[in-house]
């Protein structure tokens, strides 16, 4: 079972949400993933994550509630739903 860290960045001023997500992602241990909660989809975070070797999966729970799962590429234990690609 993978361990999940919650990072709620709602109400923070740009670029703080991205900064915090990148820091939290960098601190992930093997088998861990990050669940980022944001009030909009952080489109510009994705290329930064990809470049640093992270994968993500985004889901809109509501118009102002987006959850983004972030894990290290190749970390099968941390990947949600057994996603390895």
């Amino acid at each position, binding site marked *: 079972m993978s361990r999940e860290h919650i990072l709620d960045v709602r*109400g923070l*001023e*740009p*670029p703080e949400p*991205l900064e915090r997500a*990148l820091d939290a992602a960098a601190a992930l241990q093997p088998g861990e993933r990050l669940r980022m909660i944001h*009030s*909009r989809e952080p*489109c*510009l975070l*994705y*290329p*930064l994550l*990809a*470049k*640093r070797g992270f*994968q*993500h*999966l*985004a*889901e809109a729970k509501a118009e*102002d509630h987006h959850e983004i799962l972030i894990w290290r590429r190749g970390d099968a234990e941390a990947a949600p739903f057994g*996603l390895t*690609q």
Partner: protein
Amino acid sequence: MSLPSGLSFAQAPPITVPFRFFLSAPLFALLAALLALWFGPSLMDSRWQPSVLALTHLMTLGFLTMAMVGAMMQMLPVIAGSPVAHAVGVARTVHLLLVPGVLFLAGGFLWGWPWPMRLAMALLGGGLLVFAIAVGVSLMRAASDNPTVIGMRFALAALAATATLGLILVSNFSWKWWLVGWMRVTNLHLTWGLLGWVGLLVIGVSYQVVPMFQLTPAYPKLLTRWLARALFALLLLWSALWLLPEAKAQEQAALAVGLAAVAVLAAFALATLRLQSQRRRKQSDVTLLFWRFGMASLLLALVLGVAGQAMRVAGNAPGENFMAAFLFIAGFAVSVVNGMLYKIVPFLIWFHLQSLLMGVAKVPNMRQIMPEPGMRRQMWLHFLAVPLLSLSALWPPLIYPAALLFGASMVLLEFNLMSAFRVYRKHAKLAPKTDPQIT
């Protein structure tokens, strides 16, 4: 749910795409300020003078459109999820056509020569056409339920209307053909430009950037759904009325539609001020103050605009409304663009450095990229310039201190933007040379 994909860097066009526009814009406003100093109080003699026409277009095309084009190309991938194809080539082409186009247009007005006007027609027509096609395609692909996308589509249509009417007027100016009702065409041109292109774009973009950067609650759904649509429909109706033969009833109907359009814009300004008063963070911020100032100026411009129109229809009016024009262009439009530049520019620099440096070196924060004291100094110059400009409509000699302050404010804006860009270049040099995907 979106599956992780091999995300392309199309989400973020290279930094030069918006920056070439952002860094050019204040120079045109500075040129406008210098022209105002040169012509002085005579500017207020009539709005139809070549000097006023040159000055207006340096502001609306040179400053506002320049910055708005750059911002739209940057924002489309992020807020509409739909990047502009061939962004680098499009930006370079549009910029290289617009810059000389605005200069030739202003020069043509000033000297009254037809050849710079004809050149300006080709350059501006070509530049805006390339922009409209590139951005139009991107907007067609974007999700239609996004109120910002809807606002941007209407704004682009308004730009097309403004540009077409402008080209008709310039061709009339440079070939001297017989144009029925060129005063009406001019009024249509400026209304589509100011209320349509500027007003609709500011409305559409605000839905995203005000909550995001000013940390306010979201705009009410009712507003985001209807404001831009209503304003666009009213502009269409208003234009249709002007095609009817001149009569008292037609004038009154046009005034009623104009009033409704003003009410839409006023609702937007009031909603924005209200949201700003509900923001979570209490400390003031340069962008917030620029936007408050902008919304207050917009409200005042609308009141004066309505009063002027009503007096004209009642038959006892000057027909000139310099104060409303100063408040709308310098007080409202320049303020919101200026305020937004202070968020977008440092944010983009931060983002591109974050992407380039990848932990090789520390990325400077927003305040280090764009220091607060410099922004505040420029903001106060602008806040002093706008009331003086507006009052110069009543007492024309005030144009001298007003233009001096406005020009100084634009010099400082350019300096602040250039300093931020220098921070980018200095840090970008530290990047590992292997990955040229984002620069």
